[in-house]
């Protein structure tokens, strides 16, 4: 990572490390939790960015994976508290295990959804991913055992060996490590042979196939990895809120993750982080001033799409480099 974008990425990373720590030292628990929220939605968007930004797959259904992560965390904690079992399996409140299950489950679901959706293109792909997410949304609503429409409270915070996850700054630390790990993974993937193939699947599918690489397999794999990262974010989000509900899977949520990617700059490694910071701050502060903050968000988004295709990263760092 070189040039201006490298500096901006560095500044974003530094801000993510320093600002919440300062807020913690100032005793601003609310804002530490807000920072966790920023980092978690950034992580969800980092996941989507792999599919949408790098792979050109405009998924309007990533909330499904976000929700899967959330429900795994919620249902697991729910049974563990009650001392009951899930389909005869005892459940856990250990975060690493919950994450693993979230990520694997989302991966399997994404494999099925992707295998069908990726046979279509353009607006059909958008619609079919939306349709699948809506199916999962209504599935969650129709499950009274897990709160149905009202959602499922998580009465404990899931645990991490050796850490006090109730402590807001500790929980923030966990989230930010997860985010950095996924950013590193994305950078690594995009620099790899697989990343080069995904890039070409996006830019010139014909050229990729002519080289002897089947674009479908490349896309499907990227879609699955993308879903897995978003599911990890979902599991953390459930723990942050102490609550999961079908709204985690709603199309609003899919749209929100997409907005963050576009706002930050599609296909830019740190774009989702910039987008998430902008989005959550707008939501919190503009939303505090006016109920119609969505209108302003809409205007900003319109401006981005019309005048600043590269999003925030494009505005500050210029055109993306590819080397």
């Amino acid at each position: 990572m070189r040039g201006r974008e490298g500096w901006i990425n560095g500044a974003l990373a530094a801000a993510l490390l320093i600002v919440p720590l300062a807020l913690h030292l100032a005793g601003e628990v609310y804002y530490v939790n807000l920072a966790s929220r920023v980092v978690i939605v950034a992580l969800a968007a980092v996941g989507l960015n792999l599919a949408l930004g790098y792979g050109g797959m405009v998924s309007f259904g990533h909330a499904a994976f976000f929700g899967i992560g959330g429900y795994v965390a919620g249902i697991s904690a729910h049974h563990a508290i009650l001392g009951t079992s899930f389909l005869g399996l005892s459940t856990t409140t250990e975060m690493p295990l919950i994450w693993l299950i979230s990520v694997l489950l989302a991966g399997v679901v994404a494999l099925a959804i992707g295998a069908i959706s990726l046979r279509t293109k353009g607006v059909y792909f958008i619609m079919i991913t939306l349709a699948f997410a809506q199916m999962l949304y209504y599935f969650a609503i129709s499950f009274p055992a897990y709160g149905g429409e009202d959602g499922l409270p998580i009465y404990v915070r899931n645990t991490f060996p050796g850490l006090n996850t109730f402590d807001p700054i500790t929980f923030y630390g966990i989230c930010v490590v997860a985010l950095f790990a996924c950013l590193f993974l994305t950078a690594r993937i995009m620099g790899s042979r697989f990343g080069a193939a995904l890039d070409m699947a996006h830019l010139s599918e014909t050229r990729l196939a002519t080289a002897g690489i089947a674009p479908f397999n490349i896309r499907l794999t990227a879609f699955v990895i993308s879903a897995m990262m978003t599911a990890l974010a979902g599991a953390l989000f459930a723990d942050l809120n102490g609550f999961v509900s079908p709204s985690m899977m709603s199309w609003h949520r899919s749209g929100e993750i997409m907005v963050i990617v576009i706002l930050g700059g599609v296909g830019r490694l740190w774009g989702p982080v910039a987008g998430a910071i902008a989005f959550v701050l707008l939501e919190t502060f503009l939303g505090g001033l006016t109920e119609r903050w969505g209108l302003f968000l809409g205007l900003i988004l319109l401006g981005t799409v019309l005048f600043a295709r590269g999003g925030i990263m494009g505005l500050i760092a210029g055109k993306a480099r590819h080397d």
Partner: protein
Amino acid sequence: MTEVLRITGLAKSFGALKATDDVSLTLNAGEIHALIGPNGAGKSTLIGQIAGWIVPDAGTITLEGADITGLSVAARAKAGLGRTFQVSTLAMDRTARQNVRIAAQARAGSSFRFWGQVAQDQGLRDAVDQVLGDVQMLDQADTPIAELSHGARRRVEVACALALEPKLLLLDEPMAGLGQDGTQEMTALLARLKSRIPILLVEHDMDAVFALAGRISVLVNGAVIASGPPDVIRTDPAVRTAYLGED
């Protein structure tokens, strides 16, 4: 002479239009076999069927004796079909090197490798440099395609095909829009390549065709109306009325 490609009884209709009408032809090692014919004769449609983009209604295609008619585009490329397109398919925002590297990496094994960084892969770099050198594009290797001249883009397309180390090349109008210098460069390049890799060449530029081809097949309305060495084709009355006369 060893036969590399054989097409037997290939047919393809678009509705009532017979775009490929019972076409049979062969390509031998060491030769350039040119495919000429007026606009809309079905040349690109034929290339598309050989490469796997278009599914023929009937007929078979064999590569070194193996039937490839049922294979996907990617599988055929892996099996040794290298091709260029009449309309460029290069990724405009990427450099010549990056476009060629995709082909080189496909040749070098699986693309399901997530960790090692291609930028640091010396083997890939050498393979890319080699074919970019073949087409005399080394000096512009790191220029984005969008900034290259039309002729340079054509050469990069050929380099992409070469990076596959193909058993044959299918070239669809590689000289189109090149101008005189470009056409001469491309002609010289294909002449250098043909002993290494046989070429099925679709081309409208008759000077190039007659300079390069060992055999010429003439396609009109989807059917081969004549096939043979250049001298024979040049004087064939049917060809003259159907095609050469018009030019």
